[in-house]
């Protein structure tokens, strides 16, 4: 898929290392020496289990701090943000998990508005935007249903809607189609690529699904505890 991209790198990764502390010896979880990406780019992150795909996404969302190296996003060092990371994440990141994406006690519409409110959008505007997006995605009729009353595909499309609602510059998706059938997986990927392109967001999708991988012009392949980047086709 071809999307217009800006020239200055939005994301810069240098000598990134992540180890989890264990009694005796730390366990290496990720090694990535170099990565640059620009706004509007869509990148697939692949690699075998244990290669650090999820860890990379957590690092990029500033949910955890790297044990070595540097991650800069928009010129800002994510490793040194400390308590400001939550606020930065609310404004700058949209995140889609494999499953259990929606808050179970809230309706689909509320899931969207709460996320928007957390990112600082006033409630009234958050409601308007959420309704408009759900309408566009054909989910308007399900707006007041709780996640338990939605199919997995509907839940995942709702999660995508929530991730892109506030047009964040960075959208991260961790195996977003792993729990879905082929039709729903296609729909979810269409949405992710289309909506991130519209908002000129940088999209990184961690996947081990070859069908999904093929939809990306750029692929970052992680090796188990090695972190070798291979630019794809």
């Amino acid at each position, binding site marked *: 898929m071809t999307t217009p991209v800006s020239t200055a790198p939005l994301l810069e990764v240098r000598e990134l290392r992540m180890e989890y502390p264990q009694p005796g010896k730390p366990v290496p979880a990720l090694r990535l020496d170099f990565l640059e990406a620009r706004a509007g780019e869509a990148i697939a992150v692949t690699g075998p289990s244990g290669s650090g795909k999820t860890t990379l996404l957590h690092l990029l969302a500033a*949910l955890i701090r790297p044990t070595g190296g540097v991650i800069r996003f928009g010129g800002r060092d994510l490793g040194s943000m400390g308590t400001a990371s*939550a606020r930065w*994440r609310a*404004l700058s990141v949209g*995140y889609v*998990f494999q499953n*259990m994406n929606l808050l179970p006690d809230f309706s689909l519409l509320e899931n969207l508005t709460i996320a928007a409110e957390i*990112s600082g959008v006033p409630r009234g505007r958050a409601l308007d935007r959420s309704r408009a997006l759900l309408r566009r995605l054909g989910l308007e009729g399900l707006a007041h249903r709780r996640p338990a009353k939605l199919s997995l595909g509907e839940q995942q499309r709702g999660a995508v809607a929530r991730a892109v609602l506030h047009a964040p510059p960075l959208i991260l998706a961790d195996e977003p189609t792993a729990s879905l059938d082929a039709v729903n997986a296609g729909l979810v990927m269409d949405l992710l690529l289309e909506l991130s392109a519209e908002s000129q967001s940088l999209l990184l999708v961690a996947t081990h699904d070859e069908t999904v991988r093929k939809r990306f012009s750029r692929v970052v392949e992680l090796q188990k505890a090695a972190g070798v980047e291979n630019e794809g086709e």
Partner: protein
Amino acid sequence: MRSSTSLRIALRHLSSRAFQTFSVVSVVAFSVGLAVALFLLAQGLRLGLVRAVEPFDLIVGARGSPYQLVLNTVFLQDVPVGNIAWEDCVELSNDARVGSAVPLGFGDAYRGYPVIGTTPALSEVRVRASDPPWLRLGEGRWFEGDEFEAVLGAQAAAGSGLRVGDGFRTSHGLVMGDEHKEKYRVVGIAETVRGPWDRAIFVPLGVIWAVHKHEHEDEHESGKEVTAVLVHPASWTDAYSLAASFQRSADKQLVFPAQTAIRLFSLMGRGEAFLAIVVYAVGGCAVLTTLLVLYWSGAARSRERALLHVLGLSRGALVFISWLEGTITLLAGAFLGELAGRAGAEAAFALLGEATAIEPAVPLTLQECLMPLALLSIGSLSALVVAWGDGRNPEELLKSR
């Protein structure tokens, strides 16, 4: 994020586990309600007892239990200790140490309302010299001479349905039956004194004697007896002097009803201290229950907490939401408990009022709110601690996804 969003999330969490929330609120409400009701009952009883005792400086009656004399004369409960001769009352009236002596004769009743034989001097009794008369008429007049006329206490009038001008027959003793043939006419109805004497029916003492003449002729030369004499001393020095005189009496006693009430308060105090321990133990259990539910609920919501963290909520915001859940639960329980405690106490007061005419209404005081406030403060602070240390950090929670 605005606080209103946190509040909405917390309220939704609570409503989603409605049964759990209802159970915890009920436990808190029960403990607070119990504490408030017991406090109000104790305070109300104290106030009611003090108000009931106030007009009775000294009581002279037959020797026997001083408690029984006070219970019978002041609270119109129990049976009289016995009678003393009318001459004793006259002697007291003529004593220089006595400001006023009002004779009281008990024994008859109308539909359970005690009939008190007395004199119009009763209408002059005052709690303090500067106060208006204690027993004032709401309508009609006081009885005159030894006619079969009666003045009804406020509750006796309301309960019996008698009005000024109506007639009624009394019976001997408090149990209905054995009715006297003479008929009294209601000539006045007293204003409420918010005490046991609202249940009384006042008639001339001379009429009581006339009705019972045949029963007492052999006991005293005059056949005239009184059950008690309400004595207002000329001064407090005179009161103690009188008390000393009566200590030597073989068949009479003088009691200070206030002292008797103080002894009653002391007995009540011991019971209250034990009840207070029970109440605070129940309150402690309520706080513990709230905290346990908060902890379990936090653990059960680890995935949601992680999700909210990914959406951009800081750990502080997550702690605030958990704390809000605990505090809202405690607040609702404390508020409902306060209402339930008040309602329970009012119901008990109503029952008590019907039986004794003690009307112990208690205004809302800070002291009454201390237990709910203490429970709320301790619980809320503990909820903060539980919320803060609630399981693992959000980062740790993400690993479990």
